[in-house]
């Protein structure tokens, strides 16, 4: 899973993988909806 990060001061746009913490939260949010792991 990826994060699109837009630096509004420089206009730079980077695409990076979710951190482990972000991924854990995202999967927990999906689990709360009854969605299986991606």
């Amino acid at each position, binding site marked *: *899973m990826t994060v*699109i*990060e*837009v630096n509004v*001061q420089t206009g730079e746009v980077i*695409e990076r993988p*979710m951190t482990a913490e*972000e991924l854990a939260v*995202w999967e927990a949010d999906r689990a709360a909806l009854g969605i299986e792991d991606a």
Partner: protein
Amino acid sequence: MATTTNFGWTTPDDTDFVKDGAADIRTAFNAVDSSFADLKGGTTGQALVKASNTDLDFTFAVPDTWALIQSQNLTTGTTVTFSSIPGTYEELVLVVRNVQVASSGTTLSLRVNGLTTNYAYVRSYANGTTATHEAVNAGSGFAIDVTTPNTATNSVAIITIGKYAASYLHPITISYTANVTGVAALQATGVNKGLATAVTSVSLITTSTAYVGGVAELYGRN
């Protein structure tokens, strides 16, 4: 002594002595100079506005305007984050239009400064069949749409973050509607009760596997 019609500035009478002309001219111009004193000053970007209902009482101020800070298409990824937001505006407004995601039955939510706890809010939402009113004490984010349709068209979410640069809790309001089968609508207001510093980033997160359409626009209000 004669006076002008609108402002009452003193001017010489027709019978006054010419030898007093210099002083009379000086008197007249000094009166004009004094009347328009408020028109002096200001700086780039400011506008002249009335300071009171008194004639010629003006002040310069930055007009209440909106500036587009950044726009980002929602065509990939599961999270779009606007980072390094400068604290130069009164409030932030995030407008999210026509979000489409890879799968339906998922959610769209907002987080600030990457925080995943302490979102306290009240919200009401409806889908044309059921309507729900609830309060959340410690959510992991603000829900923008509780069941994002994957083919939403003409949807719009308007999210306002008040006093986002201040060092106290920031009021956040969300209004969302989507033109889908039935009705999708959500209204929420709340805070992140653990955030008492400036908001420097906002994130839009879908629990779907990816965005496939839509745009997010971040505005600042002066």
